């Protein structure tokens, strides 16, 4: 959005460096080092850290957000953004709560949650790709609208009384310490990794993010790709809502408030260019591990939640600012 950035060209990857050298210097390997360091520091800082059940609990810090980040990453790579994800979660959760009062069972609840997410995604998609409105404002609007509907339905009340079987999605374990959410997020990581890095659709996403006009002229259906990306983001928000609602066992209109910030931070920390065009799914996964481990470590040290949110905010800005400061510093010296 910044006007001055228009003048500068995009950094083009230098194909002369070997793939191995590129991998060592990549953002992802830096993140991997950070993950390992945090892991080691945490295990020394607290004797409770290395307990497998504690670590398993720690994964809940990022699993639901990571599900949304998987869809948000391609969306941001394609040059759009969805700030309404947390509100989609609230609306989907409210719909599930309402379904419970109408006597819905567990399978229906999952269907309701995912469908509401899908519909919200389609709503955003139609406004952005159909009418051609800027996604930042559209999703600021729908952020207010979707959560607003939850407030209309619920006011200051809450839905509880979810069926016992429904608790499995947020509290169940598939095997030993591996929770349902963890396994689901792993499967989704593979699915989105393949989609973004091994399919024509994925190539189209990068092409659109780098130059939407050129992509259009090379025969990519830009509108359709963006439509699918918004739809996927909605669906993943619905899935995340099912997991979160199941884990909490209740729905309030303020559920998942502020999650959009953490999801965007996760994606940007994962090396996705906020202006679009580059980024990887493995990077996003590593970013989720960094954020999850830090939050967990802070939790063990009794740091209040709002201090963690300062940290997330600093992380979001720092991750973008530091490489740019470094580049300016190098440009001045050389």
């Amino acid at each position, binding site marked *: 959005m910044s006007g*001055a950035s228009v003048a500068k060209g995009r950094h083009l990857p230098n194909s002369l460096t070997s793939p191995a050298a590129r991998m060592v210097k990549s953002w992802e390997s830096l993140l991997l080092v950070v993950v390992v360091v945090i892991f080691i520091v945490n295990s020394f800082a607290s004797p409770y850290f290395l307990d497998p059940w504690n670590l398993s609990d720690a994964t809940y810090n990022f699993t639901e957000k990571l599900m949304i980040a998987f869809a948000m990453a391609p969306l941001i790579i394609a040059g759009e*953004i969805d700030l309404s994800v947390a509100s989609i979660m609230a609306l989907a959760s409210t719909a599930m709560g309402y379904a419970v009062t109408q006597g819905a069972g567990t399978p229906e609840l999952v269907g309701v949650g995912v469908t509401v997410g899908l519909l919200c995604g389609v709503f955003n998609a139609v406004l952005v790709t159909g009418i051609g409105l800027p996604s*930042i404002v559209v999703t600021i609007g*729908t952020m207010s609208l979707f959560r*607003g509907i939850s*407030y209309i339905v619920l006011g200051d009340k809450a839905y509880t009384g979810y069926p016992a079987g429904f608790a499995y999605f947020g509290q169940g374990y598939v095997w030993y310490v591996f929770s349902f959410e963890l396994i689901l997020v792993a499967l989704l990581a593979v699915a989105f990794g393949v989609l973004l890095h091994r399919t024509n659709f994925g190539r189209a996403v990068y092409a659109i993010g780098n130059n939407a006009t050129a992509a259009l002229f090379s025969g990519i259906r830009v509108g359709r790709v963006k439509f699918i990306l918004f739809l996927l983001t909605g669906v993943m928000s619905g899935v995340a809502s099912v997991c979160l609602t199941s884990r909490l066992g209740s729905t309030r209109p303020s559920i998942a408030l*502020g999650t959009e910030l953490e999801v965007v931070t996760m994606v940007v920390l994962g090396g996705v260019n906020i202006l679009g065009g580059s980024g990887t799914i493995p990077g996003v996964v590593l970013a989720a591990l960094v954020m999850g481990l830090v939050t967990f470590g802070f939790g063990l040290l009794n740091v209040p939640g709002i201090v963690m949110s300062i940290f997330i905010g600093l992380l979001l*800005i720092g991750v973008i600012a530091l490489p740019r400061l470094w580049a300016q510093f190098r440009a001045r010296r050389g």
Partner: protein
Amino acid sequence: MSRMLKSREALLALAILVLIGLIATRFPEFVAPSNLANVFNDTAPLIILALAQMVVILTKCIDLSIAATLALCGMVAAMLDVAGVPMVVILPVAMALGACLGAVNGLLVWKLNIPPIVVTLGTMTIYRGIIFLISGGKWINDQQMSPLFKSLPRADILGLPVLSWCAIAVVAIFAVLVGRTALGRSFFAVGGNAHAAVYTGINVGRTQFAAFVLSGTLAGLVGYLWVARYAVAYVDIASGFELDVVAACVIGGISIAGGVGSVGGALLGALFLGVIKNALPVIGISPFWQMAISGTAIILAIAVNATEGRSRGRVILKSAEHVA
């Protein structure tokens, strides 16, 4: 173009009048002058912040940290008051602090070219977090504040409270600043076409920086007014208010793509939301409806803005330039 903008503002003014008229048919007490003055006074913070946000949006940026800046400045003002600092110091300090917080946003956008939405999304949580750190999560309430601190926004001058006069003054200052000064014109130039602005000798980054500082300063002013008026300061005051501010701007016809907007538009956009907010309890609708109504208003307004912008061919030019 100016005719089109004028007609849009006329349309909005008409919509507000129709809205008030419809309410008046069933609840005549709503249009009593004293009540309308109350509605204006209640909307004053939104008007001031909508104007602040307007200059930021004109330069093709957005300030999502405006409510957090407000809250932080308000908390600092309240803490200074509790510490016994006189009013003549508190108000300048609150505004200076706001200017500094705005400058942080502006510098990150200007010097490091970070997209404004990312910067202010980040500083939004950081500023809120700082309130928690300095207050320890405690509330500062009515009894702790000095009488002068609380009474200033309510003090009556010529039948209107100081809070209303602040909004009127800011509107007047902005009408001159935006319409009659070089800085005001450069806000439009930067947002309308950054390349052309550079060739006419305007420093794009510095203009955006100025917009953020202006926005922060006004947020600081409103921070004091807000805390003093409600006689309470805590971490979550004005939480989510940035959305109302953006909504007021978008409804007022300020294009999020930059370079298009007017002081009158922002004022009317804020008044439109203010009338709705104050009318809801009168006509017996739960205040919980307000969030969804704001959201719907944002979406409808940008849809209208987009169809207006398209006829001038701006969108095509922008996408061709902005691929980089």
